[in-house]
């Protein structure tokens, strides 16, 4: 394990497999390979964090743990989206939600993308293996906190299904600080789960190492990667590195892997699909006000969910974030705004993530650097899903006893006081710019497809155009997994790592 302060000069190494990126995909593959006795080097651009390094101030935390300071946004339809830059990748700053994709979703993948062995029955053993390793379990009532239980109450009153969210945590105390890093060390992000286990199995880890280029021999073989050592938080380049390997696994995230391929000479793109098909789960949220204090900062960050409307394209969840981050949704200005901020202790926030399969975009490399240009548009039919999700969340709030909701929709009242008044959320003729969305969960930019002419990788994660280049991040998901994608990616990575170890 090497951190920035350990580097005294350029680094050269060689191994069986080099894995680029330590998030949920890369860490699982590296772990599988290392425990199978393979010589593995895992490369991560960000630094490893300790609880003492986490900052609960949302703004400063984003600047330290996210690429582009957490201020990345799409063009076309302007929507913020984030990519972590730390050992553990997105798992360091997400809510640890681990949900299996519905059977119907995976069946649709099989049918539309010629994937014969990625059905639910195929993945279930791998889901199970990851769940066992991380101790994934439904969030217990003890750490739900009031706002999560209010969501349950609302769903029950409406007769809609709801359930505690399964999460990868050990000893969660309900501090609600998942997004700024778990100070309790309860969240089993890959930096404290798969990566240490891979190290114990012999893997070498280079942190603060930014891969800039893949090394290629001939037309179909990757021979390694090269890049630079960068100082944490500033990006200052201090040294260079190169790692030669028999196999290269890219798991840099679905917004960075296409850029790496493009920067390395339009690699693996005979299909023309690298950087295309960019999809999000656009998130919309509503803040509800209750008559009693809800103490929303206490309880699991995201403890309850409803899959009731998954067949209609959206999933509802509870949500908590640093107040300064979600206060952007509050209406008002000056003293009115302060009055709304003062209601935060009486509030709960519910959000929904939607499968917007018609809304596509692209990832392109900039002239320099590895940050991408993201272009994405929201399809008008998908907009209807978001509207329905807004309506459904409003219904849950009022069924749970909220006195009002703050929907944050341009052109509609700032505050609504009854379920009847909130009906307009379902019937309103939305324009995309009326909504404040966030680009949660990103995927499909190097999609998996059985037909090499229509996809970048096959079901084993290998790029169709290469003999030894693999991709193991959410870019390979062919479309929305209908729910939070982390567990499905980890299951696919688990299978990929096992198969790759057998081949090496």
């Amino acid at each position, binding site marked *: 394990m090497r*951190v920035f302060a350990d580097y005294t000069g350029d680094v050269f190494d060689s191994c069986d497999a080099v894995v680029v990126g330590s998030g949920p995909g890369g860490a699982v593959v590296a772990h599988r390979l290392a425990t199978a006795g393979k010589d593995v080097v895992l490369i991560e651009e960000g*630094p490893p964090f300790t609880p003492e390094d986490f900052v609960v101030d949302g703004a400063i935390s984003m600047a330290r743990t996210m690429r582009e300071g957490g201020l990345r946004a799409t063009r076309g339809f302007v929507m913020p989206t984030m990519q972590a830059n730390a050992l553990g990748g997105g798992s360091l700053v997400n809510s640890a939600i681990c949900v299996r994709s519905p059977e119907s979703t995976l069946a649709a993948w099989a049918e539309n993308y010629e994937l014969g062995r990625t059905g639910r029955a195929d993945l279930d053993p791998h889901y199970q293996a990851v769940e066992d390793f991380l101790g994934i379990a439904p969030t217990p009532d003890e750490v739900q906190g009031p706002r999560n239980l209010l969501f349950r109450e609302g769903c029950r009153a409406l007769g809609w299904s709801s359930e505690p969210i399964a999460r990868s945590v050990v000893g969660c105390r309900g501090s609600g*600080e998942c997004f700024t890093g778990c100070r309790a060390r309860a969240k089993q992000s890959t930096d*404290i789960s798969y990566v240490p286990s891979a*190290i114990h199995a012999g893997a070498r880890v280079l942190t603060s190492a930014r891969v800039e280029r893949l090394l290629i021999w001939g037309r179909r073989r990757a021979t390694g990667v090269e890049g630079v050592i960068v100082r944490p938080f500033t990006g200052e380049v201090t040294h260079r590195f190169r790692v030669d390997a028999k196999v290269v696994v890219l798991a840099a995230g679905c917004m960075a892997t296409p850029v790496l391929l493009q920067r390395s000479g339009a690699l693996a793109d005979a299909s023309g699909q690298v950087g295309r098909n960019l999809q999000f789960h656009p998130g919309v949220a509503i803040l509800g006000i209750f008559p009693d204090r809800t*103490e929303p900062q206490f309880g699991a960050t995201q403890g309850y969910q409803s899959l009731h409307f998954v067949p209609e394209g959206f999933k509802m969840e509870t949500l908590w974030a640093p107040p300064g*981050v979600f206060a952007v949704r509050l209406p008002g200005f000056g003293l009115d705004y302060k009055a709304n*901020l003062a209601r935060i*202790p009486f509030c709960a926030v519910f959000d929904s993530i939607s499968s917007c399969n018609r809304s596509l975009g692209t990832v392109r490399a900039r002239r320099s650097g590895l940050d991408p240009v993201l272009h994405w548009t929201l399809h008008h039919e998908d907009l209807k899903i978001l509207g329905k999700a807004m309506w459904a969340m409003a219904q849950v709030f009022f069924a749970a006893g909220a006195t009002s909701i703050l929907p944050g929709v341009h052109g509609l009242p700032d505050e609504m006081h009854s379920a009847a008044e909130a009906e307009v959320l379902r019937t309103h003729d939305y324009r995309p710019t009326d909504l*404040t969305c966030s680009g949660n969960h990103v995927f499909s930019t190097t999609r998996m497809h059985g037909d090499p002419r229509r996809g970048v990788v096959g079901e084993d994660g290998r790029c169709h155009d290469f003999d030894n280049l693999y991709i193991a991040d959410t870019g390979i998901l062919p479309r929305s997994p209908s729910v939070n994608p982390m567990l499905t990616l980890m299951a696919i990575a688990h299978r990929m790592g096992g198969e790759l170890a057998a081949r090496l």
Partner: protein
Amino acid sequence: MGRALILFLALAAGWFLRRFLAGYPRPVPAPRCLTAREWATVAAAADATFPGGGAIPPSSEQAEVAGHVDRFVAAQQPSTRILMRLLFVLVEHATLVFPAGGPGGRRRFSGLSRAQRVEVLDGWRRSALFPRRLVFTSLRAILTMGYLGDPGVLRLLGLAPPEIERRVCEADLLWGRVGEPSSAVRYRREDVTPPGPVAPIAAPVAAHRFDEPAAGAIR
């Protein structure tokens, strides 16, 4: 003709210097990152957004919002910093296109009265043009993160982060804090927290009543 052109250019240069560069007080203490011009814009916008009094008494100045924004900008990578700086320049000088009402409404933003600044920002907020609303949303988000990043404000709201006892895990034996070498590990194997139940962090006051409280649920 030549003399008229020179006179025009001189006047234009004078106007430019006066408009864009002159007359900004030097903030004390000196900011880490923001220029005096940017500091003035941020402080003026924060003052309009978070005046003293009301439901949360501290003003933007008492909550040191401009200082927080300065730290936030300083923590960004250079490319992102440029975008934030452009945002501040836009807000400062867009009064040329979207002026405040009353006399002197086209002065730079930080030179307007508070009432005029409120009017200008409210114009951005309510605009039918999405890009204008986006500018407002971005600016207010940055300011709000500063206001709600102030420990005093958070304490008043009851939202101050609690003390949390951390577990020690295997990973803590592998690396130290960011910036330290991996030899700077503080923990030994015997420090690793054994598995076992932990108590949830409890809300300090009675909250909403629930139909089916679970054992140990927060009350």
